[in-house]
C-alpha cells in the first residue's frame, strides 16, 4: 500500500507510539522504511557547528557525531527493527521540518509518520503552548504525501482497522482526504464513516442558528455528501454517513469515540484558509490533541491512490 514510509522521529520516548505504528505498518505493507532524525540547526551556510534545537548550545558536527547518533537510533529501535533488516537509519542537521520535507520529496515517500510532540508535555501545559508540535504543523502543511500523526498508543494495527472516520468540510483538500480514506478502507476491508459537522459554534453561546436554519444546513450538507462522496464510492459499499451540528472538533472527537474509530482522516486546512497562510487548521489541531487514535492529514492529491500490498514474502 505504501511503497516508502518516512518515519520522522526524535528517537526519544515521545515518539514511541509513532514508532510502533511505523514499524508495524511498514512490515505489513512490505514498505521501505526510513527512520529519520534531524538533530540541530546549522550555522550560516556550510558550517562545522550546529545549534542544539532544545538547549540552544553550539555543538561541533563531524562524521563521528553523525555515526554516533545513527548508532544510538539503531540501538533505540533495535527491538522494533529486528524484523526490518533493510530499514534505513538516517540523520541530518538543520531546521527539522525543512529537512523532513526535503527528505520526503527526495525519496518520493508515500507516507510520513510523526509523533505530535518532540518532548513530553503535561496535559495541562498543552493548552498554553502550540498545541501540536511546530515541526509536525509545518510538515503537515507542506507535505505532498499524507502525514500520519500518532500521539497516543494505537491499539489496533493498520491492517486490522475496523473503522475509518473521514471528516470533511467539503473543501478541495477534504476531497483528497476522502479519496485516500475510501481507498484505504476498500484496501483493508473496513468500514468508512463519512462525517460532516455543521458549524454552529459552541453549545450554550449566543448563536444566530435557529432550529430551521440548522435543519436547512443539514439537508444541504446531506445533498453535498451524496453528490460529492456517495456518487464516488464506486463498488465500495461498506460505508455510513454521519451528519452532526455543533463545534466541529468536539463533534469529530465524540463521533470518533462513539464509532470506535481506528483512524481519523482529515484535510490539513479548511476551505477558508489560503494554503500558503495555513497553519494546522484549528479543527485538526484540536482533534490531534485529544484523539485516542492516529490522525491522518491529507493536503494534496498526490499519493492518495493506494496500491495493493506487495508480493507475499516466502513462507506467507
Amino acid at each position: 500500500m505504501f511503497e516508502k514510509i518516512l518515519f520522522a522521529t526524535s528517537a526519544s520516548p515521545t515518539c514511541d507510539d509513532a514508532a510502533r505504528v511505523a514499524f508495524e505498518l511498514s512490515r505489513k505493507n512490505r514498505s521501505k522504511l526510513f527512520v529519520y532524525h534531524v538533530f540541530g540547526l546549522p550555522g550560516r551556510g556550510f558550517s562545522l557547528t550546529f545549534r542544539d534545537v532544545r538547549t540552544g548550545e553550539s555543538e561541533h558536527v563531524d562524521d563521528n557525531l553523525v555515526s554516533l547518533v545513527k548508532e544510538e537510533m539503531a540501538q533505540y529501535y533495535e527491538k522494533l527493527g529486528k524484523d526490518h533488516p533493510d530499514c534505513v537509519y538516517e540523520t541530518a542537521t538543520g531546521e527539522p521540518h525543512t529537512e523532513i520535507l526535503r527528505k520526503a520529496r527526495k525519496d518520493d515517500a508515500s507516507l510520513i509518520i510523526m509523533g505530535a510532540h518532540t518532548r513530553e508535555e503535561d496535559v495541562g501545559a498543552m493548552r498554553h503552548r502550540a498545541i501540536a508540535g511546530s515541526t509536525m504543523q509545518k510538515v503537515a502543511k507542506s507535505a505532498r504525501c499524507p502525514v500520519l500523526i500518532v500521539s497516543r498508543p494505537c491499539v489496533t494495527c493498520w491492517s486490522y482497522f475496523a473503522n475509518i472516520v473521514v471528516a470533511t468540510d467539503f473543501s478541495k483538500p477534504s476531497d483528497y482526504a476522502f479519496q485516500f480514506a475510501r481507498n484505504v478502507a476498500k484496501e483493508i476491508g473496513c468500514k468508512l464513516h463519512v462525517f460532516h459537522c455543521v458549524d454552529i459554534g459552541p453549545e450554550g453561546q449566543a448563536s444566530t442558528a435557529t432550529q430551521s436554519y440548522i435543519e436547512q444546513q443539514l439537508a444541504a450538507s446531506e445533498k453535498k455528501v451524496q453528490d460529492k462522496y456517495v456518487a464516488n464510492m464506486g463498488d465500495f459499499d461498506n460505508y455510513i454517513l454521519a451528519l452532526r451540528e455543533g463545534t466541529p472538533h468536539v463533534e469529530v472527537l465524540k463521533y470518533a469515540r462513539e464509532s470506535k474509530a481506528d483512524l481519523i482522516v482529515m484535510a490539513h486546512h479548511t476551505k477558508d484558509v489560503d494554503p500558503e497562510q495555513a497553519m494546522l487548521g484549528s479543527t485538526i489541531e484540536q482533534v490531534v490533541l485529544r484523539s485516542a487514535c492516529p490522525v491522518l492529514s491529507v493536503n494534496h492529491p498526490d499519493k492518495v491512490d493506494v496500491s495493493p500490498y506487495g508480493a507475499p514474502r516466502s513462507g506467507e
Partner: protein
Amino acid sequence: MDEIILAANGFLLRYGETQEVDPLCVLGARVVLAEGYTLRSFVQMLCLNPLLTRLNPFAKDLAGGLAGWPLSGCVPAGIERLELSKTVEIIGHPAPPRLEIYHALRGVGTGGEDLEIKPYPVETLLDVPVVLGPLKHVVFGDRMDEFRFHTVCNLFEFQEGIGWQLAFHGAPVECALRR
C-alpha cells in the same frame, strides 16, 4: 478569601454548610475538598450545576454519562489518588522567554509515582480519591530545578483543570470487529 467546600455528594457548601445554588458566585472562592471526595463527586457537581458544564465543551457529555456508569468500585489497580497541581514554569529556550502557569491532573500510584491516566476511560476512575497537590515551580524548563510550595486553588481553576484533563479520556476499551 472565600471558601467553598466541595462535598462528596457533589454539593457546593458555603461556610456553615449552607448549600450554594449559584456556582457563578463562588467561582473565585478557595476550594476545600470534603472527606471522601472522588472523581464521581466532581461529575455529580457538574450534574447538579449545569452552568459549570459550559466551561468545557466535553463536560456536558461527562455529566450525561454518569447515569449509565457503575455505582461503585471504579478504581483501577495501582492508582491511589488523582492530584490536581498548579505549575509555574519559566521557559528560556526556544525563544521568546516566557512564564507559563497551568493546572494538571495526574495519577499518583501506591508508591507515590506519577502515572499516565489518559488511557483510562473516565468511568473506570470514578471512585479514585481527588486531592489538591502543591504548586510546582519549574525554572528554565529544567525538571531538576523544581520547587514545591503550598498553594490554593479556586473553583474555576479546579473545574477547568479537571475538565481539560478529562476531555482527553474516551478511548474505547475494546476494538470493534470487522464485518
